[in-house]
C-alpha cells in the first residue's frame, strides 16, 4: 500500500482552462489526474450530438488533451480518471486509443464505465413500477416522457475502483458523481473497506473540494481576493491523501492562487444543502464534522470527517425540451441612461403587445444598475451613471413568438431614445430551453458495466 497519493484536479467544468491539466502533469509530481466535464446541460447536448452521429457524444476536448499529455502520463505513471465519456464512453476511448497509436504508444489500458445511460430503458423502468417521480415536486415523469432528451444515473466511485483493479491507465466514465472521481483512487490505493463510511465521507469531501477546479485555490474567492497573487497562472488543487483518511489540499509550487482555510471553506459551502446530509452513491457525508487546519505555505489539512451508510437509490438526471428563449441587449449612454433604458423597455413591450405576442415570461434587467442584486441594489444618481445595458429576455413554447421578439430589438435604435449602441451581434435567435427532471431509482435496477480496452 502506498503511504500517500497525490490526486490533481485538471478541470472544473467543460470549458475550464485548457492549460490546467497540462500544468498539473508537468509542474510537479502527481499520481492521478481527475477531470470533471459534465454539467446537467452538457448531457443533453452530448445526447443530441450522438443522435446525429453515433460516434459522437463525448467531450471532444478530451482526446486532444490526451494526445498532449499521454506521453507525460506514461512516463510518470499518472493515471487519468474522467467523466468526459458523456453519453458515449466507448467512442471516447476509441478516439484516445487512436491518438495513442499515432504517438507510437503500444501499451495502454483504457477502462470505460457504462450502464448509466437509461434513455433507452425508460419504458422498461417505468413498467417495473418506478415512475421516476420528480424529486422536487413528486410528480410522475410519464407526462413529459416523450420530450426527454437524456436520462442518466449518477454512479459513484465503485465502478472506477473496479476499472483501476483491472489495471486501467485511463478510466472514462459517463455520468459519475464529481466526488466519485476523487474518492475512487483512494479506495483503490489504500484498500478502504466500502462499509467504513467515515473514510468514504473523507474521500467524498475531498472530491467536493476538487470538483470545481481552482475554485478551492483562490478562484472566485470572495474574501480578501485582491491580495491573491498571480491569478493568471493559478494552480489547480491537489489532494495529498493518506490511508487514514486525512488529506492535505495544496497546489504545485510556483503557481498562482492560494490554498488557505478561507479558500477551502468557501468551496466546501458551494452548492450544498443540509450539511449533515451530503448524499452520494457511496455514502452520506456530514460536512458539519469536517475539520480544517491551515498549515501555511498553501497547505490545508482536512480531517475528522464523519459519514453514514449510502442510501438504496441512485440519483437520475433527465433533461427535456421545454420551449424557447431569447435575450436581447442594447446599451444607452449618459445623460439619463437609466431613464432611456426604462422608456425603451416600455416601447418594446407595447410593440410586442400591439402585435399580439404572448410569452410565458418576459424579463427586463438594467445591467450596471440592478440586474444581479435586484431589490438590494443601492439607489443611484442618474447624473453620474455613465451607461446602462438594457437586457430583455423572453421565454415561450412558441418558437415564432420568440423569433419575432428578436426582430423587435434592433429597430429601437432608430425608433426610440437616443445615444444607444451595442447591437453588433445581429438579431437574438431563439435557443432551446432544456429543463431538468431529477429523480431517484432503486440501485438494484441499474448495473454499472466496466470494460477494459487494451493496446498491446
Amino acid at each position, binding site marked *: 500500500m502506498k503511504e500517500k497519493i497525490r490526486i490533481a484536479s485538471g478541470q472544473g467544468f467543460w470549458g475550464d482552462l485548457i492549460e490546467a491539466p497540462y500544468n498539473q502533469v508537468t509542474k510537479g509530481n502527481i499520481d492521478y489526474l481527475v477531470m470533471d466535464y459534465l454539467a446537467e446541460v452538457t448531457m443533453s447536448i452530448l445526447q443530441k450530438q450522438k443522435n446525429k452521429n453515433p460516434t459522437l457524444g463525448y467531450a471532444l476536448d478530451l482526446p486532444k488533451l490526451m494526445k498532449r499529455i499521454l506521453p507525460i502520463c506514461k512516463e510518470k505513471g499518472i493515471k487519468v480518471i474522467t467523466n468526459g465519456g458523456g453519453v458515449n464512453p466507448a467512442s471516447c476511448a476509441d478516439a484516445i486509443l487512436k491518438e495513442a497509436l499515432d504517438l507510437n504508444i503500444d501499451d495502454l489500458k483504457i477502462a470505460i464505465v457504462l450502464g448509466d445511460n437509461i434513455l433507452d430503458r425508460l419504458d422498461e423502468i417505468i413498467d417495473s413500477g418506478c415512475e421516476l417521480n420528480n424529486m422536487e415536486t413528486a410528480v410522475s415523469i410519464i407526462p413529459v416522457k416523450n420530450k426527454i432528451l437524456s436520462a442518466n444515473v449518477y454512479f459513484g466511485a465503485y465502478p472506477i475502483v473496479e476499472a483501476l483493479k483491472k489495471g486501467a491507465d485511463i478510466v472514462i466514465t459517463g455520468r459519475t458523481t464529481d466526488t466519485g472521481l476523487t474518492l475512487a483512487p483512494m479506495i483503490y490505493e489504500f484498500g478502504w473497506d466500502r462499509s467504513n463510511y467515515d473514510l468514504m465521507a473523507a474521500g467524498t469531501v475531498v472530491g467536493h473540494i476538487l470538483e470545481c477546479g481552482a475554485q478551492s485555490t483562490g478562484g472566485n474567492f470572495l*474574501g480578501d481576493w485582491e491580495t491573491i497573487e498571480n491569478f493568471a497562472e493559478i494552480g489547480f488543487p491537489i489532494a495529498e491523501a493518506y490511508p487514514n483518511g486525512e488529506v492535505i489540499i495544496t497546489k504545485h509550487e510556483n503557481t498562482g492562487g492560494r490554498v488557505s482555510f478561507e479558500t477551502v471553506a468557501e468551496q466546501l459551502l458551494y452548492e450544498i*444543502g443540509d450539511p449533515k446530509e451530503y448524499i452520494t452513491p457511496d455514502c452520506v457525508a456530514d460536512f458539519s464534522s469536517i475539520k480544517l487546519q491551515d498549515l501555511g505555505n498553501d497547505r490545508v489539512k482536512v480531517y475528522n470527517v464523519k459519514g453514514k451508510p449510502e442510501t438504496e437509490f441512485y440519483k437520475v438526471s433527465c433533461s427535456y425540451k421545454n420551449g424557447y428563449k431569447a435575450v436581447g441587449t442594447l446599451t444607452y449612454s449618459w445623460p439619463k441612461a437609466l431613464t432611456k433604458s426604462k422608456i425603451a423597455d416600455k416601447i418594446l413591450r407595447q410593440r410586442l403587445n400591439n402585435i399580439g405576442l404572448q410569452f410565458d415570461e418576459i*424579463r427586463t434587467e438594467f445591467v450596471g444598475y440592478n440586474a444581479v442584486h435586484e431589490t438590494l441594489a443601492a439607489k443611484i444618481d442618474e447624473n453620474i451613471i455613465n451607461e446602462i445595458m438594457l437586457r430583455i429576455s423572453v*421565454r415561450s413554447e412558441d418558437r415564432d413568438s420568440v423569433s419575432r421578439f428578436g426582430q423587435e430589438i434592433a429597430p429601437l435604435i432608430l425608433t426610440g431614445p437616443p445615444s444607444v449602441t451595442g447591437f453588433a451581434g445581429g438579431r437574438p435567435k431563439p435557443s432551446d430551453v*432544456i429543463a*431538468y427532471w431529477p429523480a431517484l431509482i432503486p440501485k438494484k435496477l441499474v448495473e454499472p458495466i466496466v470494460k477494459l480496452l487494451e493496446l498491446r
Partner: protein
Amino acid sequence: MKIRLIEIAHGRSGDKGDAANVGIIAYDDKGYEIIKKHLTVERVKKHFEGICLGEVERYELPNLRALNFLLHNTLGGGGTVSLKLDAQGKTLAAALLRMVLEI
C-alpha cells in the same frame, strides 16, 4: 454599533435547481457568534424580499464558522429555464454581505 456583514464575513453562492445556496463564513469566532445570532431565517428572508420567493432554510457549520442558507424559488426556474442574468445565483453571497447589522 452598526457594521456591514462584509466586514466580518465572506462566502460563496450557487444553484441547486431553482433554489440558491448561500454560504456565509465568519473570519473569526467572534464573527461567528454575531452571524449565528443575527442571521436568522426571518432576517435573511426579509433581506431577500422580492428575490427569494420561497422558504429560507438555515444550517449551522460551527466547524467552519459558517452558516448555509437555502433560498427556495429564487432563480427564475433555474438552469437554462431561467431568464435571469444571474441564473445560478453566483452573486447572491455578495448580496447577503450587503446586510447592515446593529451589534
